[in-house]
């Protein structure tokens, strides 16, 4: 095996480097900044591609660096890490284009793009982390890197939202810290996959393990936006659209859910968690969140707020799938981790375009918007139908496996729950589509076009179209070799030898 240990730090560093360099540029140096950004984003996608190729050839990538005695900085590639890093690197690339178009000409772009890059560094770090401590470092790093993005606009409302965001995430982080230290005291530095370390303790220290699990999980549940710890998410939607897209689809919420997956499968081990009886409560909370988020979404008139509550609900699908503890349900959860990201980022891109191009923020003002922004609303339609879970959009595939997974482990209630959620999704998405396509406009749309060829600048439009196309492709070609389902299947097979 050739020495390729440089690859993993390179993946993480490919966005950290440009991020730091951007801070040294002056505000008006637009071209170098864009070049740096895109260089980092493209490089990261390529490097992740190399790692993925190598991994499926049987290569083993690892990077270790001792921070202190017993404390290692550990990066490593496994299939789950690949899944998350592919998601974040590809969507980051698309979002970078979008953000460049979105913030064109606005102030403080240096700060924005600097933290933007660092934020993705953190999220790849979370993906590649090989032990609990490394995971925690990047997890907290992410909290701090996203705060400047949330408050970017600097308005009073943005600052308030930022404060709420910090309270929640720092609070969650503190609880998680307690959990991580506790875990360290109990079992030393736990690498992901060493489930036997805690398994050995299970006999005499059952109670302590249960408490520990609860503590770690409640720390992670903040970012995973499980009810009642979801409050920051709708508040944070005041951030600019690319940030919302990143928060909702790629970085922050996914970090929480990814953490839950890691903790259950790679630290405690599914058998231990099941023996402790912790799966059922988690499934219950997830079920509650699914319904609650949707019900709250129905009540929102602000488009981004509605999307935010929709995220709360959809994210809980992932937690639900994990908590059901069966092969197919976990497959559904992992697939949804990616599919939800691609679909939700499309929706937020579109919401951003609508807000920027025709200055519309409320759903009640969207009558006939399909005539002014046909391509944008086309992409939005794809995302919305996917959220409802209709084929051929990707959302159907994850819903399908979740439902079958529920039946597989004998939890028949999962099917009505998923279908109820589909109905609720339809209740809050279909009226938007109807307004956009079938209602006559209330007045003339602003015809001033910022782009001569397209309905909105191409830098905004094309990312939305690309992710919309991707959402369809992921559903349409779900069974082909290079899709999420196959990678997820690989992961699930490692956890459940006979799925």
């Amino acid at each position, binding site marked *: 095996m050739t020495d390729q240990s440089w690859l993993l730090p390179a993946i993480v560093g490919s966005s950290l480097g440009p991020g730091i360099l951007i801070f040294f540029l002056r505000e008006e140096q637009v071209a170098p900044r864009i070049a740096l950004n895109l260089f980092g984003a493209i490089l990261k996608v390529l490097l992740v591609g190399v790692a993925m190729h190598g991994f499926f050839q049987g290569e083993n990538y690892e990077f270790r660096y001792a921070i202190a005695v017993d404390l290692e900085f550990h990066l490593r590639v496994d299939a789950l890490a690949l899944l998350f890093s592919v998601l974040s690197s590809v969507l980051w690339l698309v979002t970078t284009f979008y953000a460049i178009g979105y913030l064109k000409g606005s102030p403080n772009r240096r700060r924005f793009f600097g933290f933007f890059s660092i934020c993705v560094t953190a999220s790849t770090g979370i993906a590649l982390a090989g032990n609990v401590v490394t995971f925690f470092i990047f997890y907290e790093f992410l909290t701090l890197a996203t705060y400047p993005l949330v408050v970017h606009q600097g308005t009073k409302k943005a600052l308030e939202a930022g404060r709420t965001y910090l309270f929640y995430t720092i609070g969650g982080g503190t609880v998680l810290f307690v959990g991580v230290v506790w875990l360290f005291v109990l079992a030393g530095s736990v690498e992901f996959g060493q489930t036997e370390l805690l398994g050995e303790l299970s006999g005499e220290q059952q109670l302590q393990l249960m408490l520990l699990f609860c503590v770690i999980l409640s720390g992670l549940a903040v970012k995973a936006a499980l009810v009642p710890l979801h409050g920051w998410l709708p508040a944070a939607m005041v951030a600019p659209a690319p940030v919302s897209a990143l928060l909702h689809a790629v970085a922050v919420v996914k970090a929480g859910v990814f953490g839950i997956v890691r903790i259950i499968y790679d630290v405690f081990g599914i058998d231990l968690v099941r023996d402790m009886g912790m799966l059922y409560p988690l499934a219950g909370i997830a079920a509650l969140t699914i319904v609650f988020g949707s019900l*709250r979404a*129905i009540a929102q008139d602000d488009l981004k707020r509605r999307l935010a509550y929709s995220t709360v609900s959809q994210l809980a699908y992932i937690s639900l799938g994990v908590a059901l503890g069966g092969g197919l349900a976990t497959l559904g959860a992992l697939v949804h981790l990616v599919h939800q990201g691609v679909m939700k980022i499309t929706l937020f891109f579109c919401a951003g375009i609508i807000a920027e191009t025709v200055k519309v923020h409320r759903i009640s003002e969207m009558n006939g918007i399909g005539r002014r922004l*046909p391509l944008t609303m086309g992409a939005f339609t794809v995302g919305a139908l996917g959220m409802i879970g209709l*084929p051929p959009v990707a959302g159907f595939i994850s819903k399908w496996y979740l439902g*079958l997974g529920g039946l597989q482990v004998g939890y028949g209630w999962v099917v009505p729950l998923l*279908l109820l959620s589909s109905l609720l999704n339809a209740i809050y998405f279909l009226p938007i589509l109807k307004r956009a*396509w079938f209602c006559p406009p209330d007045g003339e749309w602003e015809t001033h076009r910022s782009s001569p060829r397209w309905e909105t600048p191409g830098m905004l439009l094309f990312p939305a179209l690309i992710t919309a196309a991707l959402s369809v492709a992921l559903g349409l*070609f779900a069974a082909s*070799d290079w899709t999420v389902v196959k990678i997820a299947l690989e992961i699930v097979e490692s956890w459940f030898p006979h799925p």
Partner: protein
Amino acid sequence: MILLTIIHLPILLACLIPLMRRQPVLCGWLGALAALPAGVLAWSGLLWPELLFPDLFLGSVLVLDPLRLVFLALTGTLWTTAGWYARSYLADDTQAERFQFFFLLSMAGNFGLILAADLITFYGFFVLMTFASYGLVVHSGNQEAHRAGRIYIIMGLIGEVLLLSAMFLAVDATGGELRLDAIAPAVGESAQRGLICTLAFLGFGVKAGAIPVYFWLPLAHPVAPTPASAVLSGAMIKAGLLGWLHFLPLGEQALPTGSAVLILLGFGAAFGAVALGLCQQNAKTILAYSSISQMGLMTVLLGTSLAHPALWPVAGPTLALFALHHGLAKGALFLGTGVLPVCPVRWQRWFWAGMILAALALAGAPLTSGALAKYGFKEIIYQTDGSYAGLLLLLLSLSSVTTTLLLAKFLRVLWRGKPPPAHGSFHGLGIPWAALMLLVALGPYLAVVHFNLPLTLPEYTPGLWLDGLWPIGLALLILVFFLRFAPKTWRTASVPPGDGVVLFERLITSIRSKIPFSWGDWWDHEFLNFTTLSDRIIDFESTRSVVNRIEPRLGVWAVFGFILISLILGFVLLLL
């Protein structure tokens, strides 16, 4: 590959529509053009072995077997003629492109779900058809269309949900196998057979207009532009029937209870819809009720075969033939309603002759396609040897009486009533209509002979003539008596279209007016709004004031000392 082309062509053309803004003529032809290959392929009678597309969906399979061939012949014909008709009908419509877009997508869904041989592909195209045809229902954009569209989409969603739950349970029963021909046997064996069958019956019943989920149909079918009504009521309605064929354990297990329920519901629909239809004043609404009634008869046939699995090899093709016959005739009647306003006087005679022929076909008059279908139906019932056979035969003949009555009412309303607004030219509408009429007359015979269906053609003995004619004669007699002697109030009796749903809407309105309740307010209520609640908890001011209040107390020596000593003791205990 041809099968894939048939499905993809409409999708592809739909995607091209935005580029055709400046070519309304070409755009107008797209509908007919997209459906033509399906029609031609189907009537050529070629079967196709299974085609596997392992990369599509979760592994997609397409096939064209004899049963599917009949359905494809029906849909191919109807979509082609309706598309051709729509060209002229919508020539002066400002939103014709939008119509064309949804028309093509619904068409792709309809073809796709027929050819699909695996569950996911089937469901995918079923969903495509359901949602795309919403665009057809609300096309006219008036209040009535939006109401019908709303009820349509709500019922459609409920149907999807029921169907999907049936799918989950069915695949759980097959152990992950997704092929459609594996579903019915597994459902038959499953412990949850009753539940799956009920869910599937209701889920597909929404499309097929079955009791108790039919009521969107008389609202949505008539309100769509006429060519869309024709495909909704002739072709898309059959998707529900096809779904039943895939899900119910026909030819596998005898389900006496299910059979009895289906037969009851079927006759309920067959007669009930006529009763409601007779109280309608709009020609297209009457046709929609007639569709419910005819689908009821198909449900009866389905129910009969559910109790006698051995008969399924013949009952299946009979059912398909019935669907073909009804779809073609109903399509022709719907298209006819639009031809009348533009029909010149010298052609009127031919027009009425055609309409009466289609109506007689539905009533099962001898020599028509309806006679063929009913003959097959009765043959099945003869073979059941059940004690109910006589009763079933009687009810079947009675249904011919009621069908004749309903269609007579339809023709009368069309003749005497206010003519619908004229769209298009006589040539543009009349020629596709005439082409469809030709297939109404010949299609089902052609299907039996050409597709090698295991069915026998009736030999017209005097008994058979009598059998076909007496219900029609009786119906005409009743009609004459009714028109002469019935009090005027009877004649003008009317039920709002959509019957049940209207009562439901009134109920909702009255509840709403009595209870000032709003979802939005309820969920924004502070008690449920965790965001506000948590904001208050973490509110900086209050948090600070708590800390501020605590801090001076910590300064008190007694408190400080107490905490210090307990901490020391705690550590000592831990060390031990």
